[in-house]
């Protein structure tokens, strides 16, 4: 069968498929580097999902209860030195995915308000371009928009409800989440 089409098959083999873009190759290289240094996935495969979720939640609570608030999430840039923007391709892919999945939980835990009577609700979380400090740590900035609501009861039995939209940029250390 194939002998009859040898000429066409040879002509097809001469065609050069388009190579993956540099961005695609860089992401794959970063993913391989990241996973080469981590534990084999097969060891983790049998860990029940619920236990993983519980451990993650407990770890997040511990981080934000025991450590100063700006250790993992801060309202300003990391203090070591000025961070520089990096392309998403240079951020290890697995870390990036982990950050995206857990950032919401982390940020919700780290959303204090100035006034204790103010009820803060997160309206939106927008990931910004990843940044990297000169010492090599990656930070994922998130622009978080809040709605702060304060209820004040007056003497006449009425309640003044004051809602103020605010926003802040949080830097989440990728190595912490």
């Amino acid at each position: 069968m194939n002998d009859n089409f040898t000429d066409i098959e040879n002509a097809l083999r001469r065609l050069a498929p388009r190579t993956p873009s540099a961005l695609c190759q860089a992401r794959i290289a970063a993913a391989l580097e990241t996973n080469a240094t981590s534990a084999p996935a097969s060891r983790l495969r049998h860990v029940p999902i619920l236990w993983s979720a519980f451990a993650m939640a407990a770890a997040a609570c511990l981080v934000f209860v025991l450590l100063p608030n700006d250790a993992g999430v801060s309202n300003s840039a990391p203090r070591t030195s000025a961070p520089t923007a990096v392309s998403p391709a240079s951020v290890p892919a697995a870390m990036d995915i982990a950050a995206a999945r857990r950032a919401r939980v982390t940020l919700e835990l780290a959303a204090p308000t100035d006034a204790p009577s103010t009820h803060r609700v997160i309206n939106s979380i927008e990931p910004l371009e990843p940044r990297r400090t000169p010492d090599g740590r990656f930070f994922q900035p998130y622009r978080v928009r809040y709605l702060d609501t304060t209820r004040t009861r007056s003497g006449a039995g009425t309640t003044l409800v004051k809602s103020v939209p605010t926003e802040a940029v949080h830097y989440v250390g990728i190595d912490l989440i």
Partner: protein
Amino acid sequence: METDLQNSTASDWREWFARNGARFLLCARQWTRSQADAEDVLQEAFVRFWRHQRHLPGDPAALLVTSIRRAALDLVRRETRRTNREQSSLVLDGEPISWFEPADNAADQLLQDALERLPDAQRQVVALKIWGGLTFDEIARQLDCSLNTAASRYRYALARLRETLTTLNYER
């Protein structure tokens, strides 16, 4: 394709991908709507394969193609769900990026055009056979058809390509 990759390092695999990525990108392109989608699918599939299956013995092509097809189907499902949810008007056709590097001569350009005009089912078999390096048995399993059907589609596709090329050459 190289064998004995089971004990290779990440660096070896990166080089392997640099040599073979284009072939598998073309395979991914068979099941995706755009070049960008194909690259996303290839990345996801290759990393998944590398994490979980690189230690398995044998030729990695069949395993990688299986991973690519699964990632492509996942992408289609995600896109469908998103479209339904957002009720947005997605552009369903991918951007007109050629699947191949620019051809050196007119004959190769004609062949590229003719290949892209083949029916999907036939073109997939050709891509998996020529660039994926799969056997008809492996292709049949990938496409959920019988071995005879896969072989027939391949034969029909090559016959059609030859016919198209002959016609175009004659017209020129």
